[in-house]
């Protein structure tokens, strides 16, 4: 039992914090947002240069063999700086599918491009009525010769505009909510029959709704077993949830810090408003919420390596519940303590609140995961 960072982990943290301090202040972020697809190729290149895009990949695949703690460190830092670049979509999720189930040929085709920053990915999973159930899939992948034909609609695909490759969940057999018969497919974003409608999201990221009309891919497009991919999807999405928990911790840390600084300097009635006990207690409760979230983010990171998939999912669901509750409190109270200025686009704090809020609704909200934990028989 040891919660301290190792020497290498400390260096990793210093290196990414340093990079983001130099190239990611609030004004720079506004510029990046206006670039194609909503993020900066230059910053992405810097992340690649520091080896961060190759972090979780095996050394044999050209990566650094980093584990859950390393990803946690990076995601916290990205959260703290409110980073727009598609680390989650490309490295955590896209990379996750390739790491866990990619064939040698698939890895050879995609991993080097991820690591050197020349390629990004996007995860096309959400459907109009699927909400948070990963097995609720109507997009169809029908066998044609050795390959597949994909038809269907996917929504709110993060980094959908820029990604070179889409990772698409599609049903190869059975009915809409069957737990078997779901496959995962690599689809080139420029394939014939792929149409995209891109838009910015509430938190300043970019996403796309993507329609697949008779999109033909080869037999080598399927990652893992195309008729039984749910366990793989759950595994990778669990990793995405863990990463989001860590990102939220970074966002909460920065929100709390910014808010405390603000109430120390903002004067009313001739004194700093931070001298008022009602505000002090609110800030203390924000601290408590953020610390509880940090603890559960660590727990989720640890749970990633649990042998039993059931225990892993239950623990990560629990973490997502705690993070959801904490982020709502910290986010809302950050705005409240800022007062009117917190309501403006001009102030940084509102953007933290918005990103936190979107994390709550990603891959299962608090209610959804609380029900999962309850139905799994609890956590004690």
């Amino acid at each position, binding site marked *: 039992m040891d919660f301290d960072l190792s020497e290498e982990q400390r260096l990793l943290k210093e290196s990414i914090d340093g990079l983001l301090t130099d190239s990611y202040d609030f004004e720079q972020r506004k510029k990046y947002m206006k670039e194609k697809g909503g993020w900066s190729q230059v910053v992405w290149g810097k992340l690649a240069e520091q080896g961060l895009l190759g972090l979780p990949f095996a050394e044999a695949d050209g990566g650094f063999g980093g584990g859950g*703690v390393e990803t946690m460190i990076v995601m916290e830092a990205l959260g703290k700086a409110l980073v727009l670049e598609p680390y989650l979509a490309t490295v955590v999720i896209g990379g996750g599918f390739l790491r866990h189930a990619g064939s040698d040929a698939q890895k050879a085709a995609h991993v080097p491009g991820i690591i050197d920053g020349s390629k990004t990915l996007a995860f096309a999973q959400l459907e109009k009525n699927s909400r948070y159930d990963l097995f609720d899939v109507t997009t169809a992948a029908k066998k044609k010769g050795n390959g597949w034909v994909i038809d269907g609609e996917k929504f709110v695909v993060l980094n959908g505009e820029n990604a070179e490759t889409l990772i698409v969940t599609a049903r190869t057999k059975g009915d809409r909510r069957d737990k078997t018969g779901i496959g995962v497919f690599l689809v080139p974003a420029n394939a014939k029959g792929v149409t995209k409608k891109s838009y910015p999201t509430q938190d300043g990221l970019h996403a796309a709704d993507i329609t697949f009309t008779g999109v033909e891919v080869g037999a080598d497009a399927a990652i893992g077993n195309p008729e039984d991919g749910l366990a793989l999807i759950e595994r990778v999405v669990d990793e995405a949830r863990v990463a989001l928990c860590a990102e939220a911790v970074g966002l909460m840390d920065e929100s709390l810090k910014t808010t405390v600084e603000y109430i120390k300097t903002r004067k009313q009635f001739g004194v700093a408003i931070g001298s008022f006990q009602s505000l002090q207690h609110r*800030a203390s409760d924000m601290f408590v919420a953020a610390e509880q979230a940090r603890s559960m983010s660590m727990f989720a990171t640890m749970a990633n390596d649990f042998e039993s998939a059931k225990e892993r999912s239950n623990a990560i669901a*629990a973490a997502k519940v705690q993070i959801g509750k904490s982020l709502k409190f910290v986010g809302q109270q950050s705005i409240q303590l800022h007062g009117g200025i917190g309501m403006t686009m001009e102030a940084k704090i509102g953007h933290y609140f918005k990103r936190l809020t979107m994390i709550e609704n990603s891959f299962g909200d608090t209610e959804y995961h609380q029900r999962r934990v309850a139905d799994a028989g609890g956590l004690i």
Partner: protein
Amino acid sequence: MDLAFTKEEQAFREEVRSFFRDNVPPDTRRKLVEGRHLSKDEMVTWWRILNKKGWGVSHWPKQYGGTGWTSVQHYIFNEELQSYPAPQPLAFGVSMVGPVIYTFGNEEQKKKYLPRIANVDDWWCQGFSEPGSGSDLASLKTKAERKGDKWIINGQKTWTTLAQHADMIFCLCRTDPSAKKQMGISFIVFSMKSKGVTVRPIQTIDGGHEVNEVFFDDVEVPVENLIGEENKGWDYAKFLLGNERTGIARVGVSKERLRRIRDLAGKVESGGKPIIQDSAFREKLAACEIELKALELTQLRVVADEGKHGKGKPNPASSVLKIKGSEIQQTTTELLMEVIGPFAAPYDVHGDDGSNEAMEWTAQIAPSYFNNRKVSIYGGSNEIQRNIIAKAVLGL
């Protein structure tokens, strides 16, 4: 960063667990599960078993009978103790006055008091709070005046837990009335059997008798009963209160109670089926378990940090333990109330002597709910804890 327990730590947990299984008297355990009060005999019997094993004062330095365990071992021991459950060592002796004596007392005092604390030959109580001095403890008024080779003590203490059993008291007394608030206080110990000591019970809203008022009327105490230096008592009090940071979360206690809730909720029916089958109830229970898991991890962070960097610098996360720990304890008693519903009402006028068999499983649930309102008040109320976080952590 390595978030798993080592093999040695897991083996230690097994050792502790099997010792409890073999040595905690079954009646004592059952009473704790049901939330009943234990008799003095039952408690002392168990503490002497623990002390014989060498675990009575586990966190004391080895030369005074401690175990030399790591922080994580202490954590495991406490968690197993609380969740078995077995009675925790008497905090007033073992965690409070003991460490003050071996840190600030003279050799004679160490020889005289420490072994008797370890074996509970003396039952100690704490004379800190007064009617006018709650959260503002330093405003206390109880006086100790030097007369020859004696202190003459006059005043009143309150909320004195289990003073009805006590042989000894450690007391904060004002020895220099002219000094500023915190400066004129001394730490004096004396026998509760001394002439002029009167103990009057306070009945709390659960109907129980845990706390007392204690009056001092010209109590004569030998001068050598002063611990440390005269007028430095406030420093020792702060040391004492800061000593037991991690135990206050009482994670094991809440874990045990959550298991009991799940068990009862599988038996008690609502709408023709066990309450546990009601999804709204299940989710509430899950919500509490998740909060507890987060608290457990926060506690482990504090424990691991102490183990690595020593106890000197408080970990900011430790402030969370009291607030969340007490809130969760209170939530568990609320959930128990929800489970038993209308059977919360019957009141056992005979107290908790178990004479009313019809109420065997419900008798202590409402009292326990009432009693647990105290946990967000004592040990520095949760509002005081928020002041501490605001000042010490956030710099407000």
